[in-house]
């Protein structure tokens, strides 16, 4: 509940206002030649990073934007950038 997130439209807001949208896994794969296992991995598998990960959030009680941001899953705080680029 201590989480705050920075919406690209509304700015830094209380974490209560947002809905988590999962890890950033890249855009939907092409259906052509897609094996069932690959599809399943795309939809259901997560890396569950212990550290900074890029992830999607939805500003449910605000502007209604989906945006991606970085969060440190160990401290549950939003961070500016991924760890290796600091």
């Amino acid at each position, binding site marked *: 509940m201590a989480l705050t997130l920075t919406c690209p439209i509304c700015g830094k807001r*209380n974490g209560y206002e947002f809905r988590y949208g999962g890890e950033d896994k890249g855009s939907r794969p092409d*259906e*052509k030649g897609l094996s069932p296992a690959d*599809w399943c991995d795309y*939809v259901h598998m997560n890396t569950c990073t212990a550290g900074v990960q890029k992830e*999607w959030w*939805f500003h449910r009680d605000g502007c*209604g934007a*989906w945006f991606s941001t970085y969060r440190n899953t160990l401290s549950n705080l939003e961070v500016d950038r991924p760890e290796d680029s600091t």
Partner: protein
Amino acid sequence: MKRLRQFPTLHIDTNETRSLKYRGKSLQGFAGDTVATALYANGIRIFSRSLKYHRPRGLYNLDGESSNTCMEVDGVPNVRTENTLLKDGMVVKAQNVKGSVDHDLMAFIDKLDWLMPAGFYYKTMHKPAAVWPVAMKAIRKAAGVGTISADYKVKGRYDEIFLTADVCVIGGGAAGMMAALTAAESGVRVIVLESRPHLGGCWDYRTGAYKENKPLFARARELAGQVENTSNIRVFKQTSMVGAYNNNLITAFQVGKSNDAFTERYVEIRSKSVVVATGCIERPLIFENNERPGVMQVACAHRLARSYGLLPGEAAVFSIGHDLGLEAALDLFDLGLKIRCVADIREDGHDAGLLAALAERKIPVLKGWVAAKAHGCKQVTKVTLATLDGTVKRHIPCDLLVASAGHTPVNGPLILAQTNIAYDNHSGFFLPKKLPEKMFSAGWMTGRSHPQAIEASGQVAGLKALAAIGVTDKTAVFAAEKEAAALPGIDRGCKLVTAPVKGRKSFICFDEDTTIKNIKQAIDMGFDVPELIKRFTSAGTGPGQGGIPGHNLPLFVSKYTASASKPMPTAVRPPLVPTLLATYAGAHHHMFKRTPLHASQKKGGGIFRNIGVWQRARYFSSDFDCKDEILNVRNNVGLLDSSTLGKFRIFGPDALKALQRLYVSDMSKLKQGRIKYSAMCNDDGCVIDDGIVIKRGDNDYYVTTSSGRAGNTVEWFRYHTRYDGWQYHMVNLTDAMGVINISGPNARKVLKKIADADISNNAFPFAGYREFTVKNTIPVRAMRLGFVGELSFELHVPSSYMQSVWDMLMAAGAEFNIKNFGLEAQNVLRMEKGHIILGQESEQRTNLLDLGLGFLWDRKKTAAKTVGAVALRQAENDPGRFKLVGIRMQDDARAPRDGALIVDTHVRGYVATARKSFTTGEAVGMALVESQLSKPGSRLEIYEDECNEIRLQARVVPMPFYDPDGQRMKM
């Protein structure tokens, strides 16, 4: 008991009396009294009986740090009476008492302590296993604190408030107030939290000198006045901080005053920086019978006199270890308390002025002495004092023993914020090693006690808090720090833990009746870490949250184990102070949306149910089978309020791409003037929504969703197109538009009378979409649907016009005897047609193919990457899936309940919806069954909870049950 009156420090108003009921008697207190002080003023000395041994317990401290004074107040158990202001008419009861609190029939247990060594209940009463349930009942009856009735409903109003601040100051003592004032000078928003009903901290009642001719209490009032009059400082009194989280999120709860709109409220503060100035509490002195009524802490005795006008006793002995004890002895002597003797643990380091003043009053001071035992079985009558080594003893009669070993900082807020704290040898305090980001501590808790040093530390903390958020620069901080460094620094603290005693009746934790002997037993059994000893002996696990043993336990363990490493405190967790669950639960508003027709639906006899976020009319008759409503639609004409339907406008250059992604059908084939029924799946192919899509123009679409999905639709569309950067817009029109459904063979005749357009079957055929006006004014979007299986128009009308259109239809239909119908009637009507409602004919695992809606899916539009298409392709050949089938009961008089199981030796499916159909006279329904059972003619056995093992018989039949060719809706 006579009150001392007319002090400037008093917090009671002796002109305003308050009465309370205790043990059948009405007692008087004053406005400003706490329940505990009012009882004390009325001569009550024993407040409760202890958890295990039923020992008498009395007033020991005034901040609710032990369960001694927890009582039942107005039916609520475990109320901390020291923190609860007296209200007129309160009914107070003592807890854990068999008989009366003065003559407890269970008091003999105190003599049986040898039967109950540390952890005895872990070792006994579990062999054989059957013993435990019996023993548990007996123990729970004999031990414990308050009891509550299972039917008890908490009274009062509970609220919550969410605040933001630039600086949040926890603690309204001198340092906290200085920090707040310093920060507020820059114009930032400051919040001060104070757990007592007034600001001032320990200066509030102290008469020691702040400066010449200015006592500390006068300075405290001066500061409090400044704080209260500063417009950018918001002060929350009677507000206890209970939690600290990431990002400096502080939680607290506030007790309402009599004129507040809340009884208690949850306070959550998001602060840019935080100053913790929670000060110190006293570290209890441990000796034999150290919790006997009549033994109390220094501040307790001093505050009783100075804040509540109560001399705590007649003749007192002091056993203390710090100058505040000397100061209190002096002040209480001047107020009329006889002081037999002051035993000070310290050999040296006293304030010379205080010693001289005590000598002037001929009060004997014994240096290097300590109380070893309190005598008297219900109240102190005599004290044994001893030298620290225990070799010389003296017995002194008295009725009050003021005892305190030293002080201990209230570190809870810092620890909750993940601060590592370490033992400091000089002060004897646990002090922070490194403070968290944007959190600063100030005041007494940093080890300082000199008044100017306290204020200076508050100032420094205030400036640091500002610098941390970029309001001032570091130079101001450095200057203030330099000034503060010139003032007296951290005091040397008294380190004594226990008097020279064996410790059989020396209590380290009052709440849990844990003695020094218990701790020794635990250590001798091999527990060497305070955290483990705490759990094994339960010391510090009571309602006082470690207030009494929090500091002494690690000190004693370190001493007894002769450990070379420094004492380690036990963990602190939120909530720091016991909080009512009702406060966390909050107001619990019942919030539901109402349709634009709510009032007229109600007037029309609607019986409402809460469905999702809406209140909807489910029945229009006391007959919940809705026979009349159903037959009226089948044979005549009925009106339904469907305003809860989700309604959206989707437009923009990429709107079609979005529709292609989300809907399973090919939306490029949409034609204007026609409706398209389609469905949305999730990535597993499971159906999440169905509805109508209408093309109103180029790149401009109007779609409906089911009522329950309306709130998530925008999120769902945007989520699945979040990587694509498509240009399209969505407008949620759910609340802006209402929907009226007019159904039945006479529907056209009624609508024709008010519509400004030709609505004949030729001009407006089935599955058509038209926009026209009513009375040349009201814009209506009309579609011809067949959900209920009759000639039916669905009219989408701006909400503000809904009532008008409804009234016009009612008037136009009067000659046909038009009637309302509700949700239940609609439910049966559509079931007879085999039309599904998502959530009723489907659950989370049900995919598009299971429902027989595979025809909606266009498998050629792979480029659209339609959500669910990949999974559907994989599910196509899966034989292990459920299928939606029609069922007919063998006994037409007995339809199973929705959700009844279909079984043989295993569960094979379940009934989705089943009703007695008044139209066909059959008991029919829809069920999800394993695909092997889905062929027409398959026999099904249905199990219900109350069926007494007699299963209902049914068989699979083709759907729909009514008008299979769909002629009636195309009329």
